[in-house]
């Protein structure tokens, strides 16, 4: 079997079917949305920071899309808890692919990194370093 089936290992399917931290927060420190126009994936990331304004207390996500984008958001929401905003901003696509633990075929990388990009842009907007209404994987 080729790349595709490797992409859908148990962990990915589990997070897709049983997403963790799914929903919207009542009092998020920041919220941001984004889309992957290629797949039609849409994701909203809500992030709650601790009082130090730096440590990530909780992350929730919501949205629709393919298994890769939704599983990635689910896993990332757990991964980020307890990390710092700087940790989040330092993540790159390889970190996301490592987190997913599967080979992502080239055409699907955008699905995989959507949640990460949305969370990062949300953090930068919160810090006043970026002005953007919506994140797109095509930007």
């Amino acid at each position, binding site marked *: 079997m080729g790349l595709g089936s490797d992409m859908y290992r148990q962990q990915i399917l589990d997070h897709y079917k049983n997403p963790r931290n799914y929903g919207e927060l009542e009092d998020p420190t920041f919220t941001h949305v984004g889309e992957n126009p290629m797949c*039609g994936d849409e994701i909203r990331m809500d992030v709650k920071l601790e009082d130090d304004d730096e440590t990530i207390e909780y992350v929730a996500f919501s949205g629709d899309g*393919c298994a890769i984008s939704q599983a990635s958001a689910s896993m990332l929401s757990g991964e980020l808890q307890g990390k710092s905003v700087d940790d989040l901003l330092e993540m790159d696509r390889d970190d996301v692919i490592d987190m997913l633990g599967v080979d992502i075929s080239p055409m699907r990388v955008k699905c995989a990194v959507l949640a990460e990009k949305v969370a990062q842009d949300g953090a930068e907007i919160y810090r006043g370093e970026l002005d953007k209404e919506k994140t797109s994987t095509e930007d």
Partner: protein
Amino acid sequence: MSHQNLAVDVEAIRDEFPILEREFDGQQVVYLDNAATTQTPDPVVDAMSDYYRESNANVHRGIHHLSQEASEAYEVAHDRVAEFIGADGREEVVFTKNTTESENLLAYSWGLNELEPGDEVVLTEMEHHASLVTWQQIAKRTGASVEYVRVDEDGRLDMDHARELIGDDTAIVSAVHVSNTLGTINPVAELTELAHEHDALSFIDGAQAVPNQPVDVKEIGADFYAFSGHKMAGPTGIGVLYGKRELLEAMEPYLYGGGMIRKVTFEDSTWGELPWKFEPGTPPIAEAVGLHAAVDWLEEIGMERIRDHEQELARYAYEQLESEGDVEIYGPEPGADRGGLVSFNVEGVHAHDLTSILNDHTVAIRAGDHCTQPLHDKLGVAASARASFYVYNTREEVDKLVAALDDARQLFA
């Protein structure tokens, strides 16, 4: 075309496509992405290869033998395409890069110069972005408005709505001949007649029609008609804009440069004859040779037989998918007004996930919005999977597609 009634000899045809023998992970490719691009038969590859090996030179005004040969081949390709679609000679056939460029040529040359505030451009809800985005943007620049003929629940154009929309303010009606998403074959002659009743022009996007069925532009009556080489067994890099001679004559060039002029001074220039007026710079010569060969190849099989073969496959695919129970299919039911493609979704499986899993079975289909985002919004889905057929496809390949869906169901159940 003496064997019009006989079925297509698929086996013999497949022999001319070595690419269909390709294997990935030991499985032979099942190529069902023909609405995106068709494969290229040996006679077309050979014609282009022979051109480069034997006749390559730049066209227009070369005095030497090779340039004369190349020019002749390039010009004759226009004649052959004109004959194929029923145009009145090479003057009505402009070679472009693809359907999209044909559309832009018309929109920039005619639209930008002629459209005014108050004018209406009437499109359909099933337009490809090639025409939808182009007219939308040209309308913004000219102050014209854009209206869309509704698509009804069966995936057909609401012709009552078309009759309401098309009126004296309509400047042009731009409609897709065959929808690349719904498979609907639209009544383009009727739309053209409606346009003409109100002194409006008609442009037909034939990218999914010319490769798959007989098309006669004079029978349709269209003022402009466009299609691409690479969807009709020809090469990429060449498309066609058909236009009525008197209309093309009145239009300004879209691109300027060498090869399209009559006389140039430091102050001004005048334009050459049709169709060269719209083909500045070194044109796609080898591609024109390839397109010529593709037209020969298609006509040898016969466009009616190609249409019948594809419609039969589409009907079979539609029925097989429908009997699965958890498959939603878009577009009209199989019949005379449905072409050779089927777009669908499997319940609970995103189209991109589905396509990745089908790729594990070496079944090549497309997932996405197929450049019809507004139509997908209307259908209420972000994406769909699309299987599209050509003259070399078989029922067995449809069976492989349907069988592979089980894998997706098991994974996502």
